[in-house]
């Protein structure tokens, strides 16, 4: 496509080349100058691409490869990395917190699906019916997404505070018993999921609203003529029409929630009694509290494999439907 020269050349030879190329008769150009021009074009293109390739190579492609090696190495800053075989994995599986962390993460992901999947869908379906105030509602549901996550976490930690916290005060006003939001082993994870849903549901809601807007109105009219009730229309028209986008957001949400970190890091620190230690929190401790990068890398590789499996499903879905 880009066969014409990009710069006006003073050489008569090149003028011929240009004229020949733009008139669609490249066969007349002498082969050597054509090759030289191709080389020059590629050099120019790679000059533009160079910085991009460099940052991707250094901070994306190289770490991917290195990550796989690190799992089998012992890394200290004092000396070069040493090969230790499966030692990191042996130590990893011996850590009682390892199983706890995966269980907790799976529990968080499951809870986040119950709240985080249903809430935005219901919200979007309702908002889509409104004929007024949609702009305001769309804006408010997205407001928390714009807050820095650290602000959200500190704010909710204050809400959950058993003393002057807002939530227990609200329960008191409603004559309900006060809760130990973050101090109870059973409730702590639910509390984290509540924050997470509040903070993130705006994105999904707006995506669903866009998808709902794309459903052809005739489908509803046809269903109505067939005597379908609102609930039947929702079940047989709306949801099937959104099947693809629902699958995508479901997978993206699983991918996102399995990497949960800041919620337990700020709100509970993994407690009470390790009930909220998640995979990434444990990985963070291995690497940046104990400086055991080999152990952390072994954990990273497992996380990579698990999440990579979900990514592959996502890729197949988008390939076949997109």
């Amino acid at each position, binding site marked *: 496509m880009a066969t014409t020269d990009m710069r006006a050349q003073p050489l008569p030879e090149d003028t011929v080349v240009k004229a020949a190329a733009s008139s669609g008769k490249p066969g007349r150009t002498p082969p050597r100058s054509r090759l030289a021009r191709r080389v020059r074009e590629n050099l120019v*293109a790679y000059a533009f691409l160079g910085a991009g390739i460099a940052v991707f190579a250094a901070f994306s492609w190289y770490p991917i490869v290195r990550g796989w090696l690190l799992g089998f190495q012992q890394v200290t800053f004092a000396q070069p990395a040493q090969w230790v075989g499966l030692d990191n994995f042996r130590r990893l599986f011996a850590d009682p917190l390892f199983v706890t962390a995966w269980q907790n993460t799976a529990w968080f992901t499951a809870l986040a699906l119950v709240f985080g999947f249903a809430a935005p869908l219901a919200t979007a*379906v309702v908002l889509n019916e409104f004929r007024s105030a949609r702009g305001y509602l769309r804006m408010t549901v997205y407001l928390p997404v*714009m807050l820095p996550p650290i602000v959200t976490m500190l704010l909710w930690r204050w809400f959950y505070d058993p003393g*002057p916290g807002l939530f227990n005060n609200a329960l008191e006003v409603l004559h309900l018993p006060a809760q130990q939001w973050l101090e109870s082993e059973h409730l702590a994870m639910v509390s984290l999921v509540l924050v997470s849903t509040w903070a993130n549901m705006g994105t999904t809601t707006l995506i669903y609203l866009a998808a*709902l807007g794309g459903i052809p109105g005739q489908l509803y009219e046809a269903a109505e003529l067939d005597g379908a009730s609102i609930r039947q229309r929702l079940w047989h028209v709306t949801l099937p029409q959104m099947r693809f986008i629902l699958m995508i957001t479901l997978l993206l949400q699983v991918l996102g929630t399995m990497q949960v970190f800041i919620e337990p890091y700020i709100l509970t620190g993994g407690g009470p009694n390790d009930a909220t230690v998640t995979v990434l929190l444990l990985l963070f401790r291995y690497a940046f509290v104990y400086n055991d990068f080999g152990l952390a890398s072994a954990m990273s590789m497992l996380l*990579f494999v698990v999440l990579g499996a979900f990514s592959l499903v996502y890729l197949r879905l988008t390939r076949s439907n997109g």
Partner: protein
Amino acid sequence: MSDTAERTLIAPTELNRRTGKILYRFVLTATLIGFTVVFVFPLYWMASGALKSSRELADPNPTLVPHSFHPEAYSEAWTNTGLGRHFLNTLILALGAWLIQLIVDVAAAYALSKLRPVLGNVVLGMMLATLMLPVSALLVPTYLTVTDVPLIHVNLINTPWAIWLPAAANAFNIFILKRFFDQIPQELMDSARIDGAGPVRVLVSVILPLSRPVLAVVSIFAVVGVWKDFLWPLIVLPDPAKQPITVALSRLAEFLPANQLLAGMVIASIPLLVLFLIFQRHIIAGLTAGSLKG
């Protein structure tokens, strides 16, 4: 998604019935109140809490409106605890990341879309493949790379480059920029070339002026992304003096008086909320572009 009355789940005839009208009003009002309480009120609570005195804040029976206003918590947080400096750090990190992302990613997307070098598609594929990889699984190797960058052997820890350079390796930017550039007709470029414009000139005077919408999306996401980031700056900027406001807040949360902490949280949030109110349309457009790709 227009606000004109399109046919949706519920038929207009159903809405116009008496019960339909009442129900619609009821649900609309309930949603308006509910959303305001759930999503807006917490922000009010944060901003007004920062105006209360420490004693009023510690009261187990919180007050809806501050008894007495103490705006000095904001200035104390800004100067005495040094959050102003961290705010500035965040600003520098965000603007630098924005600039570098724009330069690196626009040039790369332009080359891949319009200059089309040999093996360009392989490079594009390798870049887009990184979109599929879980960021957190690469946290440790990327961190170790930043402590000793291959070939040049420089330690970027405690420098802004530790944020800026990895941020530029952004496949999402490359993806939406290239897709946008692909739609710009080749004839426009050809005619510019016949007029004697080189590749830089074509990019600056033909491509970029046409690409304002996509540049806006990339810019907003670049600034917002760095501004919100917490885990990465937490590990690559251990020096307290270099930390952005997000990391500083988490470090100071245990020591600061409650009203100053709240004031700091408001200060950290305001730029993003202002950005959102100004660029709402772009942000929502970028969001749906990212999710409904293909």
